[in-house]
């Protein structure tokens, strides 16, 4: 009897699953780290993706085809990410997003071999913006190299157009994420003549005391920080202890409203960050989601997350992905293939998701969409843009991109 009940349950479960995997839906795989290192950001991004999918589905989906999101946990473990990819690939999914640098790197060779689409905004290898080499990878948005170059462009603007004699400390967590911009910063330091000091600190990022002692003694004009979440909070306290003005501090995009709250909104006054999305819930797209979903108790998570810049980051990633697929269906028709989706994404031109992101134009050569960011400053109550959307030192960034993507292409041909 018990066995019969189990079999009946399984049959029902299968029956229920089948409609979800309907052939006319567009399926996206969000293989995310929902349990380890990326949990400071993955819930907000997944929530935003689900919310936006629901909003579009209520309007008829993408050119009449409903969006289906499949969210699974890989715990930031490359092997589990590969399992997630292989399993969902067999189920016919063509668009994947890993939201993790190590997992994206691990999955990338399979994506390239299979000819599926890898969305890897803000994570993964920076040279993947080279669409000539990484045909199936779309790191839409700024790479860490582009972000760092844009920070230096801002410093140059603030220094009266020249960087000669300017001291910049690069304060970074000493693992691949933090080390990523070192190459481009060294190139720019040599070219522009500013003094670059590298100040690493160890994982897990709580022990910054000796790094800040070094920075105090270096007395830099600017501090560019490649840190995540709470590491910025600890940095702010160390800066105060060391008598260093927080106005010198320019954070990478991974600093959100929770961090500001933990630093203290008044203490954080003057702090800066680079970003590729406009923050806050007053953005038109966020407002529409609040009205259509959260006001009707149909949201996919806690309403307070919608005020988080990482929520907007999720909206940015998926507004781009959904728009690319919509263009693919519109241009080349149904059924979708990875090739059609690729063409769709490469058709994005000056797309800004109704003001949410820097306008992006994706081409067959540039899968990054232009790599624009802007510098914002916390004024005690809100983020105030300090620049327009900028993409500085593009020649230098692309020179590093080409150099590294050529290495990848060479290693692939030798296999």
């Amino acid at each position, binding site marked *: 009897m018990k066995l019969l009940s189990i079999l009946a349950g399984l049959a029902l479960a299968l029956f229920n699953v089948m409609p979800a995997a309907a052939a006319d839906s567009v399926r996206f795989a969000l293989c995310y780290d929902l349990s380890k290192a990326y*949990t400071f950001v993955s819930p907000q991004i997944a929530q935003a993706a689900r919310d936006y999918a629901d909003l579009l589905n209520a309007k008829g989906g993408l050119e009449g085809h409903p969006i289906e999101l499949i969210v699974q946990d890989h715990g930031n473990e490359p092997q589990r990410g590969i399992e997630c990819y292989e399993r969902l690939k067999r189920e016919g999914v063509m668009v994947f997003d890993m939201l993790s640098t190590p997992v994206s790197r691990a999955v990338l060779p399979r994506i390239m071999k299979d000819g599926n689409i890898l969305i890897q905004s803000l994570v993964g290898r920076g040279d993947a913006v080279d669409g000539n080499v990484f045909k199936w990878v779309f790191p839409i948005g700024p790479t860490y190299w582009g972000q760092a170059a844009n920070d230096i462009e801002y410093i140059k603007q603030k220094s009266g157009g020249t960087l000669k004699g300017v001291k910049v400390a690069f304060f970074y967590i000493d693992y691949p994420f933090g080390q990523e911009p070192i190459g481009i910063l060294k190139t720019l330091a040599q070219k522009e003549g500013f003094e670059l000091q590298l100040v690493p600190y*160890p994982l897990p990022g709580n*022990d910054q*005391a*000796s790094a800040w*002692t*070094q920075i105090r003694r270096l007395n830099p004009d600017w501090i560019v920080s490649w840190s995540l979440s709470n590491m910025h*909070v600890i940095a702010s306290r160390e800066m*105060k*202890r060391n008598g260093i003005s927080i106005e010198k501090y320019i954070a990478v995009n991974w600093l959100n409203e929770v961090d500001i709250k933990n630093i203290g909104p008044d203490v954080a006054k003057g702090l800066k960050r680079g970003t590729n999305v406009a923050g806050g819930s007053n953005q038109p797209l966020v407002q529409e989601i609040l009205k259509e979903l959260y006001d009707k108790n149909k949201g996919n998570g806690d309403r307070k997350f919608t005020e988080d810049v990482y929520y907007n980051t999720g909206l940015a990633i998926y507004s781009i992905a959904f728009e690319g697929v919509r263009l693919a269906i519109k241009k080349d028709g149904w059924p979708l293939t990875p090739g059609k989706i690729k063409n769709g994404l490469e058709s994005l031109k000056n797309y800004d998701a109704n003001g949410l992101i820097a306008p992006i134009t994706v081409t067959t050569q540039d899968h990054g969409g232009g790599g624009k960011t802007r510098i914002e400053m916390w004024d005690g109550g809100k983020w105030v843009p300090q620049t327009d959307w900028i993409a500085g030192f593009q020649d230098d960034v692309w020179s590093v991109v080409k150099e590294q993507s050529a290495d990848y292409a060479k290693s692939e041909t030798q296999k």
Partner: protein
Amino acid sequence: MDAISLMESAANGALIGLMYSLVAMGIVLIYKSSSVPNLAQGSMTMLAAYVVLAFANSAGAPIWAAISLAIITMFIIGLAIERVALRRLAGRPIIMILMMTLGLEIFLRAGSMTIWGGTTRPMNLGISDAPLFLGPLLINRAYAFGAVVTIAMFGFFVMFFRSRMGVVLRAISDDYTAAWSVGISVERGVALSWAMSAVVATIAGVLWSSVQGVDQSLAQLLLKGVTVAVLGGLDSIGGALLAGVLLGVVEGIASSVLDPLLGGASRDLVDAAMLILTILIRPHGLFGRHDIERV
């Protein structure tokens, strides 16, 4: 690197080291009574910090009341861990007991992630972040406060081990079979050591959280705690105190000199070197009993 920088790194290192000692004291307390190296001490420190926040944020208690309530709660949790998980392993091979504490460590860390998520939460004890200069040396107030509390805890344990209950624990530590034969309740003594260790974990959790916030990375204090405990001698509270200072000073100076050259991992290298060298050269540590030896 000038002399003042080195002195500053050494001074702050000593203060940080004293805070490591607090984690090590928890390990030593349990080892003294039951010869169990508790690999869950880091996770207990993390759990205690979350319990404090639960009282402070969810129940709305003032922070000092929340800490007091957390101390009581952790005392009970310490007793419960010993009663439910450890006591039934009495007489089993040490490797089984070690694996049990490792299992506890994973359980507490994963459980906290499930309940509270991965976002770091602040714990504000009201310690000012303003610069504090002693002559030319910048001293971190949070570390200084932590060091004072650690020394106070050490004083408490010196007094405690002279009390009636403390003498009972020392007797169990010296020879639990003999203690048993003269009517001492060894189980109760061991349970008390787990409870006291959980209380020390609470104080360590509060102090470290005030520095770095509350998240799962607090559990990684285990590495520091184990290094200090082994260096000082696994059964010596005083050894833990002095070894903490030693490790902190060496770490501080090494990271000042080596971090710019090697990257940010020199502290971990120092920890690993200290641990390996201690086990190779002096397995009983600086102040431990000589019966902790290589066989």
